[in-house]
């Protein structure tokens, strides 16, 4: 009957109809959704990346089979002896499509553009391994007089809980580093006996410092004097007026002066125009930091010494005009037009995978200066890669054409990328023979059982993981025994067998496939032990365990997984669990606010190293969201960043992973896979962990 007839179309060795009659020099595919940006400094996810990586070259390019760095703009590179940096030698035949040659200055300009917070680059974190990058991104590092580098450290206010030396209980005092023990306290003459914050901030007197044991004080307030302008304003400086725009950040200096970091001016302005978004008040003290060591690179030896003790300089004694917010403080440098040196904040052998990343590719300064944010329109755009942009219709398609001046060779003349965000439609288009491939995971899950035997379908391991975060700030989840019990009571094979797409169950977070890394295995499925632990924690057979909810965002897969886990916990531990589904934005907000009990989450690795998963869980990790921290864990991560020997380094990371397995701030459930459909006549694409398939390597044999 009708069903059989329709099903007939699905018969045949490939899922997609043959495209043998189509032009072999044109590749057509659906790019999963309309990209948000095609400016490399602003681009975010994979759909953005697929277009950016064909228009713009980077220092290196992902190798076609194993992602190993291939020379691109950089013909060769030297690793620094201490493992904390690289010097890149650029080719001299690379040029922008407007004729200007590509030089190291382009990279310096682009990377600064990514890290300068004024430009609001959302993926700035990709550059955070560069020395000083995180500080720069938060406007906290300046160059002072005589070139000293200064870091603006937050100071905090604490209240004394008992008398200490000549300070009385109940007083508010400023503290340089709230995590230190003993605390270094700043006391200002004639300002000691203050109980209000505003008074403390405005007080000016001679300073002295003394030490205070941390247990004698309790946190009172973080103070801030960095504010955001709520509307356009004019800064009146001795050298003339400066126009400032809404959203810019300025530093408030007592005495009603304002310092504008972006262009080093200080002056006065109507303070009512400043917004204080968080309602907090935080002061920054300037602390001198060791300048970046450029001497003798690439032969810098790691002496293993700790950084020098900072010399403490406060903002008020230094004229704000003497502070410069400039890329000089950043860890990269242009040695000459074709030499670019980068210093990293730790040992990062994977950095050369990052140099192929979208965000680290150079953007054309000349186009940006001429057209502003409209520089990526087809009529304005300037590119450096194998293709240039001919057409862009929002929500319809991008059309790229071959760049005849490119230094390399490419087999395609034209690339058409549709921007359809409905994956069923995308699959239908492929099925009816209108596209050459379906990008990873743009395939509806329900089709997978049918696709399994098709020649054009391929499944490969992905560097990503599906976890259940546990809110460790909420009892009873603050008890590690409870967390471990929950983890051990899940039969993960059950979950994976339902999803049917070849995912792998996970008992630890780092997915398999990273060369040289032997992961620390976590506790597997052990219901007996789980019950024992739960009983030990005070809930024998689940009695008395409070009702809680599993939070997930609305998607069939998540619901399925949650239902299975709910089942498992009821069966093996006797704990009744509820499911709670929220739509995407609400779910994000709830997780960020730590408003949940257990929440589903996922992460895709950015580079080929276990650190991309392990660095999530350090204190203040913006993507941690479990409330869990452990200074020993943080120390281990930092130490790994100082270990030059690759094998030793990976071992330290494995130890860190073992800590996570021990403490269970989250439960790893499974590792994803990439499922893709590719017409058999498309060559040059290979499955890999990061799902990077540079189109420049592809060709079509028809």
């Amino acid at each position: 009957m009708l069903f059989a007839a329709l099903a007939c179309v699905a018969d045949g060795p490939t899922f997609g109809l043959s495209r043998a009659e189509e032009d072999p020099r044109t590749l057509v595919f659906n790019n999963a959704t309309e990209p948000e940006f095609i400016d490399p400094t602003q681009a975010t996810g994979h759909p953005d990346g697929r277009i950016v990586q064909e228009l713009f070259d980077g220092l290196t390019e992902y190798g076609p089979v194993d992602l190993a760095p291939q020379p691109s703009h950089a013909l060769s590179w030297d690793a620094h002896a201490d493992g904390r940096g690289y010097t890149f030698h650029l080719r001299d035949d690379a040029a922008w499509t407007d004729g200007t040659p590509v030089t190291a200055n382009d990279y310096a300009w682009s990377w600064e553009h990514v890290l300068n917070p004024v430009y609001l680059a959302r993926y700035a974190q990709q550059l955070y391994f560069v020395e000083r990058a995180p500080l720069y991104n938060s406007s906290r590092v300046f160059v002072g007089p005589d070139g000293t580098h200064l870091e603006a450290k937050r100071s905090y206010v604490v209240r004394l809980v008992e008398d200490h030396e000549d300070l009385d209980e109940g007083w508010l005092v400023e503290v340089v580093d709230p995590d230190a023990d003993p605390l270094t306290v700043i006391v200002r003459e004639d300002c000691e006996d203050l109980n209000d914050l505003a008074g403390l901030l405005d007080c000016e007197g001679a300073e002295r410092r003394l030490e205070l044991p941390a247990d004698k004080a309790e946190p009172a307030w973080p103070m801030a004097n960095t504010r955001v302008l709520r509307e356009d304003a004019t800064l009146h400086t001795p050298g003339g007026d400066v126009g400032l725009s809404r959203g810019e950040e300025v530093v408030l200096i007592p005495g009603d002066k304002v310092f504008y970091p972006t262009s080093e001016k200080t002056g006065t302005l109507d303070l009512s125009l400043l917004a204080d978004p968080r309602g907090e008040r935080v002061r920054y003290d300037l602390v001198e930091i060791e300048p970046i060591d450029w001497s003798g690179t690439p032969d810098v030896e790691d002496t293993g010494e700790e950084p020098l003790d900072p010399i403490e300089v406060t903002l008020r004694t230094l004229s704000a005009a003497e502070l410069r917010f400039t890329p000089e403080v950043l860890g990269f440098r242009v040695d000459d037009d074709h030499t670019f040196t980068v210093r990293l904040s730790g040992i990062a052998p994977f950095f050369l995978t990052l140099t192929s990343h979208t965000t680290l590719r150079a953007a054309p300064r000349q186009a940006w200066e001429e057209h502003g944010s409209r520089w990526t329109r087809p009529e304005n755009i300037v590119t450096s890669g194998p293709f240039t942009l001919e057409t862009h219709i929002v929500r319809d398609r991008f059309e790229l054409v071959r760049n005849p001046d490119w230094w390399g060779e490419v087999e395609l003349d034209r690339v058409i990328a549709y921007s359809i965000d409905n994956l069923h439609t995308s699959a239908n288009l492929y099925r009816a023979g209108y596209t050459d491939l379906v990008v990873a995971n743009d395939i509806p899950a329900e089709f997978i059982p049918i696709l399994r035997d098709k020649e054009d379908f391929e499944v490969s391991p992905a560097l990503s993981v599906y976890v259940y975060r546990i809110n460790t700030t909420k009892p009873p989840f603050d008890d590690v025994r409870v967390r471990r019990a929950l983890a051990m009571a899940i039969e993960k094979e059950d979950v994976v067998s339902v999803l049917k797409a070849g995912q792998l169950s996970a008992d630890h977070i780092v997915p398999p496939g990273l060369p040289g890394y032997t992961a620390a295995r976590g506790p597997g499925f052990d219901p007996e032990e789980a019950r024992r632990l739960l009983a030990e924690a005070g809930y024998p057979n689940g009695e008395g365990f409070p009702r809680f909810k599993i939070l997930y965002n609305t998607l069939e897969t998540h619901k399925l997984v949650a239902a299975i886990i709910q089942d498992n916990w009821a069966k093996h531990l006797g704990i009744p669990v509820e499911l709670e589904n929220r739509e995407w934005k609400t779910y994000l907000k709830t997780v960020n606010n730590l408003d949940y009990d257990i929440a589903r989450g996922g992460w895709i690795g950015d580079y080929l190293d276990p650190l991309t998963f392990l660095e999530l869980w350090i204190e203040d990790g913006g993507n941690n969201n479990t409330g869990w921290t452990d200074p020993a864990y943080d120390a281990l991560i930092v130490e790994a960043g100082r270990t030059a020997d690759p094998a030793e380094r990976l071992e330290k990371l494995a130890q860190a992973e073992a800590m996570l397995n021990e403490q269970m701030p989250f439960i790893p459930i499974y590792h994803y896979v990439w499922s893709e459909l590719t017409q058999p006549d498309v060559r040059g694409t290979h499955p890999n962990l990061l799902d990077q398939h540079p189109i420049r390597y592809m060709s079509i044999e028809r």
Partner: protein
Amino acid sequence: MTKQVVAGSSLWADAWKRWRRHRISVASAVVLTLVVAFCVLGPMLTEALLGHTYEAQNRALGAAPPSWVHPFGTDILGRDVMVRTMIGGRVSLAVALVATAVSLFVGVTYGALSGFLGGRVDAVMMRIVDLMLSTPYLLLVIVLMAVIPPSQVSIGGLDGSIILMFAALGLVSWLILARIVRGQVLALKEREFVEAARAIGVKPLTILFRHIVPNTLGPVIVYSTLTIPSVMLSEAFLSFLGLGIREPEASWGTLVNDGANAMSVFPWLLIFPGAIMTLTLFCLNFLGDGLRDALDPSASRT
């Protein structure tokens, strides 16, 4: 030509006779009753006879075409499509009925009060209605559904998305009804029986709701028969867009959406819920036609 005996024959009896002659409308009513029975009683029967429920998953089976065991086939989780169509029908019909009831309640009360109170109050109240009619209400409803998380509105066992639907759709349809009722009330309140009641000393509100309103029921019923399918369609369309009924509940709209997604490989997921829904709307349309003719034969026929 036989003369109708007027004595003892009420308005309703006349209407009933007229309606019975409209064969297609009667047939539609019968089919509709069958569909309702299908949706309301079906799941229990199916569970008894075949053992399926709407949530029982058979993941090993996955999506299978129609067979004796699963007359409408199964979906990707192995759930029986026939039972899900029945359950979906319950939700769709319930939403249509409740939303229409909401709009009836609001519209009749508003229109009746406006017509009865007359004068300035009436003018203002009708102005408000006109204002609301001139705005693209549906657009606001879409924004509302997209933006209010159903989780915030759940009451007891009833999922928030269903409650939102009742409110949103009910609030769209009451406007024209208010106008209609108001028009009727304005005409009726000048009649003798109202004057008589007033003379006796019956309280105004009682006059309004006990005497006048029941006489407006003709057009109200006609309008409702138009509203029910339109509300059902709105619910389905919102659910299709992903804004309406959400997991774990299902409605015909969500079933059709899921079916449309998978139709290139599992066409039965689209065809059965779609056919039943179309059949229901078809019958509702014809039933409405018939009722309209029966209750208000002066309206032009199409």
